[in-house]
């Protein structure tokens, strides 16, 4: 192995991963890191000097240590220093001064910009005004009433105390005012504010730091934004954005980016005016990488058919940009030393058109390596160029490592480079026509390489993708070439562009047809649970062995050995599956709402409520069920639920259940045996369609969930008459008993039912864990009830709301009895594990502990 850069890039990745692990495990990642890095360096030097006695090896080991350290250091120290500055001001009313650093992006009713923050001043709180008697402060205060869009009300009260004290501490030390450096995502209400790249703006609003992962399987929004270099978000009204005019001269990058923006607009204009709407939108996306205008269902089709990479600007585009220029310059007789820097410049101008997305950056860096190689008369090595691109991008923005697009791009290219030739050789011996085996030699390794990634990130396996790509591959290149010709000629005459458009329209229509037809085909996409790390490693090892190691070194393996390997892996999986589990209960963070998931030691699964936003459509892609509950279930490896319980029919309990009933295999649907009106209709319809048993329950019912686990229903009362109970009070109350451990789920019951339960002699309502009734409302958790239940642990399932949940009085009452309180709004998901005697509790978000 003499591709040292490949080793170094691997070391860099390890550095970032370990830094990330250190950060989530300890509160002092710095200490941990310095210790590891120093010891690593020491070990490296020691090994190479005293044991191996090789100077070259010493340099290699040193290089490994340096790249490891660089990745970790950049991740923890540099990037997080910026993040921490923003965190101090989380939820505070601030005035941000900065530059627009992106093109306008239309998201729903908002326009979205990245703002490169230059200065940031807190303005909202009275006690702070003394600390910033600068001129700008008054300008900000003027708008302090204008924060009433309502999104941030909750973050405000939650973080007020901490942010103000932190800030004053910061200003005392005499440092710069607030955070500088870093980027902020600005959402401006309405579509009428269009800002040029580089425009300097003053925005006032409530700063909010994105949330980390709240539930297993859901998106880590903080990390996601960090992969774009963004550390904070803000919502603002049009009137709160003030354009500084005339803006001071912007740096060259700003001017270039503005040119890029103008070019993109002109390209889009030319294309939109020479093609039908759908085709134009797709072509514009293919050329500029801007997918805002692509309708959701169309994008979904491309996703499901595994063709989404066609809408991503990447290597193919870069190639098509370079080739014509290289040809022209050669004809002009320019030397490579003159021509190639110009081409590289053009390439990066193109990136300004598309925006700095990982695939195009990767391709541009790889292409630049080749071009520089031509200048200094050295030959580039593809694998090394990929590593170089990886190193450059990760040193620039280490958080990119966790971005799905980044991973897919590198994995696909890497797989093609590593496995492409061997795949081709394998296919050659089969009787497949040449052009098909050529296409397959890139499609197969790319798809094989990204398979685990799509399973991890999207819980999907687009099995149709090889077929779809085979159909789409011949046209995608032609479409881009014709599209580029249209974009260029369209600047001269729109008629020329239209003329080419006639041809391109055919190709684009074909592409659209392929994506739609393959996506809609039965069994085109499989929904899969998130594979474990071990499984992924085994998969990649097998892939590497079969497609690289074996053919490269011409290793012959007897089929018996293959059989043994297969049996070994399968038996390992079976053994792993047979290890008895323990009781696991997860209280998900579904905002203001309830959701709990139960897995018994024998593997029975139960979902109690599903959260959901009041009045929202449960079927939409953004709904609680689709965004949070189903990804959570798939992350936990659940494709089948033994029972789904809806405690009552309020949106914040029932809404998220609907997609589960519609999409996941459910054995039975348990609902209260006391129905007021038609509130359960949608759920019942879904059950009827999917042939799910509906079981209405009342007090006295009980159910065994495998061995040792028993569920008893305590409410609604057996003898309740029509009109007697409110919806909240009709909630199912159930107690889960596993050996010595009891967990009480209470839905939204209020005082009167609590009193009834406390008086009840039929049931023992004592429990170790209490799901606090009604999100901690003061209508519930009466002293008599708490005294009866006497929980050791209380879980409050609560989020942003206007009802004052959880009530401070209730919290005090619980704390007063010595109960340990967990809150989903502070802790994220609360995860309980029990062996029947002891209970262990984990929370998703450590840093937000109350």
């Amino acid at each position: 192995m003499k591709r040292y850069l490949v080793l170094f890039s691997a070391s860099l990745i390890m550095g970032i991963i370990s830094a990330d692990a250190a950060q989530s495990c300890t509160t002092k990642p710095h200490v941990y890191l310095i210790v590891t890095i120093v010891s690593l360096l020491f070990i490296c030097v020691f090994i190479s000097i005293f044991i191996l006695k090789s100077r070259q090896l010493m340099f290699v080991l040193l290089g490994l240590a340096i790249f490891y350290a660089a990745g970790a250091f950049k991740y923890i120290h540099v990037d997080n220093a910026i993040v921490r500055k923003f965190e101090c001001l989380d939820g505070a009313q601030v005035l941000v001064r900065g530059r627009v650093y992106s093109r306008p992006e239309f998201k729903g009713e908002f326009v979205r910009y990245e703002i490169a923050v230059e200065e940031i001043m807190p303005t909202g709180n009275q006690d702070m005004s003394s600390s910033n008697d600068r001129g700008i402060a008054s300008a900000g205060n003027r708008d302090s009433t204008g924060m009433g869009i309502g999104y941030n009300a909750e973050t405000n009260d939650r973080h007020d105390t901490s942010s103000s004290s932190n800030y004053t501490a910061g200003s005392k030390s005499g440092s710069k005012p607030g955070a500088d450096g870093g980027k902020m995502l600005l959402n401006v209400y309405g579509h009428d504010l269009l800002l040029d790249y580089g425009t300097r703006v003053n925005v006032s609003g409530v700063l909010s730091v994105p949330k980390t992962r709240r539930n297993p399987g859901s998106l880590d929004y903080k990390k996601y934004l960090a992969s774009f270099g963004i550390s904070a978000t803000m919502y603002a009204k049009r009137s709160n954005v003030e354009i500084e005019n005339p803006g001071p001269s912007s740096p060259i990058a700003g001017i270039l980016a503005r040119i890029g923006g103008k070019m993109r607009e002109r390209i889009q204009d030319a294309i939109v005016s020479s093609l039908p709407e759908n085709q134009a939108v797709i072509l514009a996306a293919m050329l500029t990488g801007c997918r805002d205008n692509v309708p959701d269902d169309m994008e979904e089709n491309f996703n499901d058919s595994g063709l989404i990479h066609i809408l991503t600007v990447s290597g193919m585009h870069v190639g098509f940009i370079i080739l014509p220029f290289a040809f022209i310059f050669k004809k002009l007789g320019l030397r490579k030393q003159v021509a190639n820097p110009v081409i590289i410049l053009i390439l990066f101008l193109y990136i300004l058109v598309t925006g700095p997305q990982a695939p195009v950056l990767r391709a541009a860096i790889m292409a630049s390596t080749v071009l520089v190689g031509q200048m200094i008369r050295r030959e580039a090595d593809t694998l090394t160029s990929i590593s170089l691109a990886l190193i450059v991008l990760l040193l620039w923005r280490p958080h990119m490592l966790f971005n799905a697009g980044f991973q897919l791009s590198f994995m696909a290219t890497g797989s093609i480079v590593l496995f492409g030739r061997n795949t081709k050789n394998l296919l050659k011996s089969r009787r497949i026509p040449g052009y098909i085996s050529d296409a397959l030699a890139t499609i197969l390794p790319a798809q094989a390489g990204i398979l685990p990634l799509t399973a991890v990130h999207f819980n999907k396996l687009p099995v149709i993708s090889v077929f779809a790509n085979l159909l789409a591959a011949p046209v995608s290149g032609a479409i881009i070439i014709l599209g580029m010709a249209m974009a260029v000629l369209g600047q001269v005459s729109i008629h020329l562009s239209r003329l080419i458009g006639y041809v391109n329209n055919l190709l684009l229509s074909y592409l659209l047809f392929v994506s739609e037809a393959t996506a809609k085909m039965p069994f085109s996409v499989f929904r899969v649970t998130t594979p474990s790390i071990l499984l992924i490693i085994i998969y990649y090892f097998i892939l590497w062995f079969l497609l690289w190691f074996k053919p490269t070194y011409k290793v012959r393996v007897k089929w018996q050995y293959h059989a043994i390997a297969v049996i070994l892996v399968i038996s390992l999986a079976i053994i792993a599956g047979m290890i008895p589990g323990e009781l696991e209960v997860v209280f998900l963070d579904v905002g203001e709402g309830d959701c709990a998931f139960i897995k018994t030691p024998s593997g029975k699964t139960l979902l109690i409520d599903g959260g959901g936003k009041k009045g929202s459509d449960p079927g939409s892609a953004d709904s609680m069920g689709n965004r949070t509950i189903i990804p959570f279930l798939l992350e936990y490896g659940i494709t089948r639920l033994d029972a789904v319980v809806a405690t009552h029919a309020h949106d914040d309990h029932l809404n998220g259940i609907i997609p589960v009933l519609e999409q996941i295999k459910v054995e039975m649907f348990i609902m209260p045996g006391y129905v007021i009106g038609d509130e359960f209709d949608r759920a019942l319809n879904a059950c009827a369609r999917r042939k799910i048993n509906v079981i209405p329950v009342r007090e006295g019912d009980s159910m065994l969930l495998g061995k040792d686990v028993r569920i008893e229903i305590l409410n609604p009362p057996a003898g309740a008459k029509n009109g007697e109970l409110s919806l909240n009070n009709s909630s199912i109350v159930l107690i889960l008993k596993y050996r010595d451990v009891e967990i009480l789920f209470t839905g939204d019951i209020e005082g009167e039912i609590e009193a009834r339960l406390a008086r009840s002699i039929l049931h023992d309502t004592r429990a170790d864990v209490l799901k606090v009734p009604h999100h901690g409302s003061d209508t519930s958790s009466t002293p008599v009830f708490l005294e009866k239940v006497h929980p050791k642990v209380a879980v409050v399932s609560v989020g942003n709301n206007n009802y004052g949940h959880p009530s401070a009085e209730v919290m005090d009452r619980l704390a007063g009895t010595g109960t340990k309180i967990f809150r989903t709004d502070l802790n994220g998901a609360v995860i309980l594990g029990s062996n029947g005697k002891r209970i262990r509790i984990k929370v998703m978000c450590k840093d937000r502990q109350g």
Partner: protein
Amino acid sequence: MQEGIIKLAARIIDYINKLVFPPKCIFCSELLEYKEKLEICTKCIGKVPLIKDNSVFLKSFMHGVDAEAVWFDGIFCTCEYKGIVKEAIIRYKYFGKYSYYRAFANLTAQRLKAVKNMDEFDMVISVPLHKRKERTRGYNQSLLISRELGKITGIPDKSRLLARIRHTDTQSLLHRNERYINVKDAFTVTDENEVEGKSILLVDDVLTTGYTLNECSKVLKKAGARQVYAVVVAAALHDIAQL
């Protein structure tokens, strides 16, 4: 001190170069150790058809032409134009593998040093390529080698002193008799003062008939060069044997 820093910087740059563009054997693309100077792996170096006795070329060349028509004083060929060398040179000249020049120059220098005292040469000159040809190819294969050879041996490269004034057809596509006419009067010396009384090492990639080298030597000698010694990477022994 300053020299030391420059040397260190050069070494670091070299390492970075090799890191980003890992050196590979020009014959089998095997990755090489960084300290490997030749860019040829140990397996392939054994397969290179090196030429032991160089006098054969001059003799056979003179055999075909009149004695006074031979203008160079000597000719040195590193290896035979066959097998892996032939394949590599074809890739080098026609398939854009420009990076091979280092290996060829190093190999040639290594062999040449063994038989010739390099101090006796004042300059290295490569057989010029016509502008049009260089444009389509993107590089002048002989110039790359001569420059590198000059760098290795410490002799200045003065290839600009020799120019091609007439576009000629590719020699290898022509018959033997046509080749002679093809290259006749195709070259000129741009600055005779600099050539006057100098000892010159003339570099080309492949030797087949020797007409090109002879023609170049002729103009150099006529411009007053004291000695012209030709050196090529590979010689087509097969062609020469036919003479």
